[in-house]
């Protein structure tokens, strides 16, 4: 957002700014391509901008609408997913708005400046390489927040907005009354920080601890927290729950909410979908030869997609306070697997409910910590 406003300030600074912005993102691209530059294809880079696949810059001036149309058709021809949306989001971003619909009337029929036209070409060229729009414009909305997006950190999905809704609904129904009962929350796998920051924004008393196994995700979460002024109540740690459970346990005790959108795709789906996904167009998962935009470790949940979920549920009773809850976003096939597994393997955790997402798919699991019978007997025994 900031970048947009700056870009638009005056024509004079505009060119300088875009220059630096461009250089910076190119730089980012380099580091992120660095590991796979040995690959056979380099989809884009400083040189790729002017490859033959990109339509030539128009000789004369064109309007925003013409640019949108031209790129939509080009995306279509090249099989880029959501061609219309992509080119519209990019132009809206360049013109300082979030969506074309929220642009001022008549703005689309105005001529683009030379600067803006070039920017449009640069950004759309990136999209042509199947880079998700969210990475191209480097930001996206999650609930009422606008978050910075940067590869390879996972881009939050609309389903996760509903996960936050579930947590908020429960916490608002039962607000902590200060003192000890002030709520604390743990998020495992924070990515861009979407869940944690939304919770912090809506609940001014809440404190959150966020973990991620990727340094890039930790950095992005911190950056987003700073942008939104929510850093004071947030602690972010670079920890892998799979490998370092002890550190997790030493850091967090007696939290009332454990929320996570863990990697939950089945490995076979990730593997088998990949080429298709590329062909019929997703931008999420790309052929191994091409750049991977989103970190696979943020998606792949192992053979049955439950690797991380099982770990979280095993740790949950030790982390939660009594009656504390776990909120998970999972694959629609998961709830029926999770329930019996928890009953058989995790003591002190009670499966509360399965919630459906806006498409009607069983998407969220809610579990609650209850003092186990053993504890209760012990307690009764002590009293007698």
């Amino acid at each position, binding site marked *: 957002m900031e970048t947009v406003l700056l870009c638009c300030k005056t024509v004079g600074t505009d060119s300088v700014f875009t220059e630096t912005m461009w250089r910076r993102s190119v730089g980012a691209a380099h580091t992120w391509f660095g590991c796979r530059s040995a690959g056979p294809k380099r989809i884009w880079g400083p040189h790729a901008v002017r490859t033959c696949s990109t339509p030539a810059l128009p000789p004369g001036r064109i309007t925003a609408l013409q640019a949108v149309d031209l790129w939509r058709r080009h995306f279509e021809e090249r099989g880029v997913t*959501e061609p219309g949306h992509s080119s519209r*989001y990019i132009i809206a971003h360049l013109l300082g708005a979030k*969506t074309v619909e929220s*642009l001022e009337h008549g703005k689309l029929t105005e001529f683009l400046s030379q600067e803006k036209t070039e920017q449009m070409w640069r950004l759309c060229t990136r999209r042509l390489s199947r880079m998700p729009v969210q990475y191209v414009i480097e930001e*996206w*909305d999650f*609930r009422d927040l606008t978050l910075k997006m940067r590869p390879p950190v996972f881009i939050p999905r609309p389903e996760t907005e509903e996960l936050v809704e579930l947590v908020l609904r429960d916490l608002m129904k039962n607000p902590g009354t200060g003192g000890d009962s002030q709520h604390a929350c743990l998020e495992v796998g924070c990515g861009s920080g979407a869940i944690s920051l939304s919770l912090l924004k809506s609940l001014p008393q809440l404190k959150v601890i966020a973990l991620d196994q990727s340094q890039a995700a930790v950095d992005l979460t911190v950056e987003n927290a700073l942008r939104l002024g929510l850093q004071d109540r947030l602690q972010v740690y670079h920890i892998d729950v799979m490998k370092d459970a002890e550190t997790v346990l030493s850091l967090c005790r007696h939290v009332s909410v454990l929320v996570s959108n863990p990697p939950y795709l089945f490995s076979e789906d990730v593997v088998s979908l990949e080429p298709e996904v590329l062909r019929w167009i997703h931008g*999420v998962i790309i052929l191994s030869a091409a750049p991977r935009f989103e970190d696979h470790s943020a998606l792949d949940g192992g053979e049955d997609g439950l690797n991380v979920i099982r770990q979280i549920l095993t740790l949950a009773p030790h982390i939660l306070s009594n009656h504390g809850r776990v909120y998970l976003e999972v694959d*629609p096939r998961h709830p029926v697997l999770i329930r019996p597994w928890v009953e058989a393997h995790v003591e002190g955790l009670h499966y509360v409910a399965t919630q459906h*997402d806006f498409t009607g798919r069983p998407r969220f699991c809610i579990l609650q910590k209850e003092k186990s019978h053993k504890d209760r007997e012990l307690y009764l025994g002590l009293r007698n």
Partner: protein
Amino acid sequence: MLVSSCFRLCFRRSGGVYSSRGRRAGWRTLTGQTCVNYANTTEQQLWRTATTKRLYHSDLYKNESVQRYLQQLMEEYRDLSKKLEHVYLSESDRKVLLKRQSELLPLANVFKDVEAALKDLEELLSLLHGSACVKDKDEQLTQLLKEEEAQMSQEILNLRKDLIKALVPIDPLDRSNVLLEVVSGRTTGGDICQQFTKEMFDMYQGFACYKNWDFEVYNYTPAEYGGLHHAAVRIAGENVYRHLKQEGGTHRVQRIPEVGLSSRMQRIHTGTMTVIVLPQPVEFDVSIDPKDLRIDTFRSRGPGGQSVNTTDSAVRIVHLPTGISAECQQTRSQLQNRDTAMRMLRVRLNQSMMGKETEQRHTARKQQVGTRSQSERIRTYNFSQDRVTDHRTGYTTRDIKEFMKGGEALDNLISDVLAHAEREALLEVVESSGSVKQPASGQSAD
């Protein structure tokens, strides 16, 4: 003619007031009967001058058709009371009559008070003249009576205001909260429109603060140069719609831009912005069954969730029983869009549920305020002349800076426009009722 007719009216309905005022009755016996005749002759004159002065304030009261309408209603009220006492009625008929009676009751009460007050004044005046003719009888008493008279006149004045208020048709939506939108004009004025839209937004925010209302921003789309394209807010509090309903329409600005060539040339630009005010009734708040809704969003094939990355955040919600729908693609968050669409759907459902009656009343109100319509220019803010003019009433105020703070200055203007609109509304009702029942009321007046 008018005054005398209203006088007649007072005399006619004044039975039984005397006896209740013991104190003044005492004075009457004290001053004696000698001057009564004299008093009667001058009283009318005095009364007349006093009345004309008062009528100047509440000019509606002297309006012939308003008086006729008032009498009609009182006649109706008496008939109703009589019927309810004597005539045998079926239960349903009785209910209808009782409902109408309770509608008229506040008016009838004020009317009674006015009559009683007039009677008292009349009495007082006669006393005053009685004491005046018995010269140097009692200076103190005369003084007292004069004070009393002034007080009574004021009371009558206030009562008449109440009476007019009771006559003005009540807008059941007055107590509603509102959805207020400010929209920058098209490019006619360029940046000036957006700048002005922002100032208007700030003004309404200030006004909400001044009135101690809640001000919740639903949408805020800033323009590139620090102005505002569009904003939607929900304003909640006491009688919000009543005070803001007159704000809907096109507002015009005239000023010299702060930057650019025109600024250097001191050239005045004209721009516009539009305010839209939709009532969100409190008591009509519809409960929507989630089962009645169809929510259309992008739906992927396969398992969805992490396996899909879509940028399609548009949402459309259809209320199946009514077919009313709302859609939103203002933000890149699907949930935000869904919430906004839901709120819009709610407002639309409310509006449609309000029914035909309100619709008719609204068109009626629009007509009676004559040329006013949503698309019309209602007010001009001339910055170079430091002046705000409302075109519906001609009300003009200086010190635009103070006005744009949304405090007392704006409140005064709104009150003026509101009073004007209510007067128009009353005249509309009066005339429409007069045209139907004129012959009957003409007879009764004579």
